[in-house]
């Protein structure tokens, strides 16, 4: 793990090519994304003011990010006043160190976890394991991933790449290693699988004295954190243990409860296609005789301030991790999340990962190209992130390098590797297109040699002709037809 990118993964095109050939994976994904896509569309269509909610969501986030310095200090003040302790983490290593030290201070060797993207981004479970502390994932899908020694492939549904039969195998084979074994004779009936997970997890909830969570939102005016979930495991983790440590990206702030109301409408309908999610947990510091005795909030930067410095790319920080863009993406549907090689897959991952962790890595530099720019992601985004625009912006950075912010300092980065030939071709094409005489000469050459054109192209053109025939070159271009037939003034 390196700030969101899994080390040792190939660049997107190679990983995607392998994924596309996996028929089981494609079947699982087609079924799952197709189902949730239709349900989301229906849930959104129920609200006559969806467009206004979406605009409000975008505007609230945009304004909050513009004044983030103010709201962060407000959060620190309110959380502290309510009995919590606020920690500031500039990067993944610092956040991991803080959390590890906090767990050590309790004397505990295990923690239960609420599903959290931020802790995945920093590789917290691995860092805790190195310190001899076991982290138990309690979200059902995260449990499947953890037991299977696997990686999440979706933000909301981390085990979307698995079908029921595969999940039964994982439970039957692996639960005993981690705690209570799966019941004998477990079948792949969803109710039986859920019951096996419930029994396995219940043991952990009742024993755990430390919990680690993220947060969907932090309400600045009262210093209140919010976690929305479907299974109730989050509620268990947030209320039963004595110590609660929440790792939260600094972009998660909303100024007021009135603002939160907008997002509690946008998020469930966009993510699980529900009118309202089953569990919404809200907590403010600590409360005597109710819930954890100690509460720590770790505010995580890890590339967010640098992202904020980019006037085009910063809109990615509005993201509320709903996954609607993954579910609607035709590329994601065919490759799954693992091909993206990063904690944040899909369209949002393709703009978030290269910004949070930089584009020096070949994989990160390949992500902005993992899109046909069809625009379906932008259309469904509940906070109107223009993902295609940011993708193109990041392609510009990959192709040409440019000015970026690194740990708050402006630096110039070099173009990503492998763009020299493309750059030459793009410049040549632009040169020719700026000289219609040259364009006409090229068209006439193409027409004169049309019978000689091969059906299969060599070099980079092979990528086209491997699966598609080429159009037949016409006898004359449009401009030649026009000048010969319609325009007497031209030769």
């Amino acid at each position: 793990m390196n700030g969101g990118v899994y080390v040792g993964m190939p660049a997107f095109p190679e990983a995607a090519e392998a994924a596309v050939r996996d028929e089981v994976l494609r079947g699982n994904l087609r079924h799952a994304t197709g189902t949730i896509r239709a349900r989301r569309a229906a849930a959104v269509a129920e609200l006559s003011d969806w467009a206004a909610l979406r605009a409000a969501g975008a505007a609230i986030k945009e304004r909050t990010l513009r004044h983030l310095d103010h709201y962060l200090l407000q959060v620190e003040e309110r959380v502290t006043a309510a009995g919590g302790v606020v920690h500031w983490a500039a990067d993944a290593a610092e956040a991991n160190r803080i959390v590890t030290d906090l767990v050590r201070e309790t004397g505990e060797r295990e923690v239960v976890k609420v599903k959290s993207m931020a802790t995945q981004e920093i590789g917290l479970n691995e860092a805790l394991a190195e310190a001899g502390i076991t982290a138990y994932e309690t979200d059902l899908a995260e449990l499947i991933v953890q037991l299977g020694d696997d990686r999440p492939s979706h933000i909301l549904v981390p085990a979307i790449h698995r079908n029921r039969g595969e999940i039964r195998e994982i439970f039957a084979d692996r639960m005993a290693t981690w705690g209570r074994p799966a019941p004998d004779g477990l079948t792949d009936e969803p109710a039986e699988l859920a019951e096996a997970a419930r029994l396995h997890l219940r043991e952990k909830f009742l024993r755990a004295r430390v919990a680690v969570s993220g947060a969907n939102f932090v309400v600045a005016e009262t210093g209140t954190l919010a976690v929305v979930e479907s299974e109730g495991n989050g509620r268990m983790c947030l209320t039963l243990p004595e110590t609660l440590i929440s790792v939260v990206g600094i972009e998660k702030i909303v100024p007021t409860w009135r603002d939160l109301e907008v997002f509690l409408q946008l998020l469930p309908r966009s993510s699980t296609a529900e009118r309202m999610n089953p569990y919404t947990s809200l907590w403010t510091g600590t409360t005597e005789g109710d819930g954890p005795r100690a509460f720590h909030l770790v505010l995580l930067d890890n590339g967010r301030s640098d992202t904020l410095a980019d006037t085009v790319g910063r809109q990615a920080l509005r993201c509320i991790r709903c996954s609607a863009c993954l579910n609607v993406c035709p590329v994601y549907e065919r490759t799954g999340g693992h091909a993206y090689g990063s904690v944040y897959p899909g369209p949002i991952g393709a703009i978030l990962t290269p910004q949070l962790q930089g584009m020096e890595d070949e994989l990160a530099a390949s992500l902005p190209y993992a899109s046909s720019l069809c625009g379906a992601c932008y259309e469904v985004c509940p906070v109107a992130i223009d993902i295609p625009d940011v993708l193109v912006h990041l392609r510009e950075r990959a192709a040409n390098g440019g000015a970026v912010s690194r740990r708050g300092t402006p630096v110039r980065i070099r173009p990503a590797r492998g763009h020299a030939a493309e750059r030459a071709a793009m410049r040549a094409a632009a040169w020719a297109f700026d000289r219609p005489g040259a364009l006409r000469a090229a068209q006439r050459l193409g027409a004169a040699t049309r019978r000689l054109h091969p059906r299969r192209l060599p070099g980079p053109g092979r990528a086209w002709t491997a699966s598609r025939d080429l159009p037949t070159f016409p006898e004359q271009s449009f401009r030649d037809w026009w000048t010969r037939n319609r325009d007497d003034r031209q030769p």
Partner: protein
Amino acid sequence: MRVALFVTCVNDTLYPRTGRAVVALLERLGVTVEFPLGQSCCGQAQFNTGYRREAEPLVARFGRVFEGFDYVVTPSGSCTAMVRENYPRVGSRARAEGRGEALARVADSVVPRTLELTEFLVDVLGVTDVGAYYPHRVTYHPTCHGLRMLGLGERPYRLLRAVRGLELVELPGAEECCGFGGTFAVKNAAVSAAMGADKARAVVETGASAVCTVDNSCQMHIGGTLSRMGAAVRPVHIAEILASTEEEIW
């Protein structure tokens, strides 16, 4: 009303029939079409692949060539979207980089006047029945930039439904991308081909004899995939259907 045809580099070079169909169609509707020979390419391939600065001379050229026209009509949703959505970005980013107002002025000038063909027909000319005859079973694929960037909506369908002899059949999963995506088709060829194959299969399953779009670049991908599959479905640009009459089937 002075109307210019921006035929686009793809149509100019590979699909001149489409350009000729636009001319025939508009002239039949009483519009005098001019074709300024200084035109070339909108710069979309450069811009979308990350070469914004390389697209700038083409943006400037577009502004010069189409100055003085009331409308610039384009038989491509994608190239129209490049002008309408991305020229303002080219302009504002050049301005933000301290390189003056010229490109921003080009965008301000051409954006309101540049229309995709079906927009021009329905919104400006106010026609949906263009007097066409096309005796075939046709399915329509709404290409992404026309659908989502321009919001063409019902316009192409209304035009096609008014064509005599034409049987319009619904395309399952119509709003899903065909997988072309410009340089995406070669940079991520495996995914592009998988998307293309799914789209081609959906087209074949409709039983249509022709698949219609407003974009020949997407059509090159869909048609090339259909051809490789050995399917007999013919890709056809909407302009060619609308230009067709009893006397002359395009």
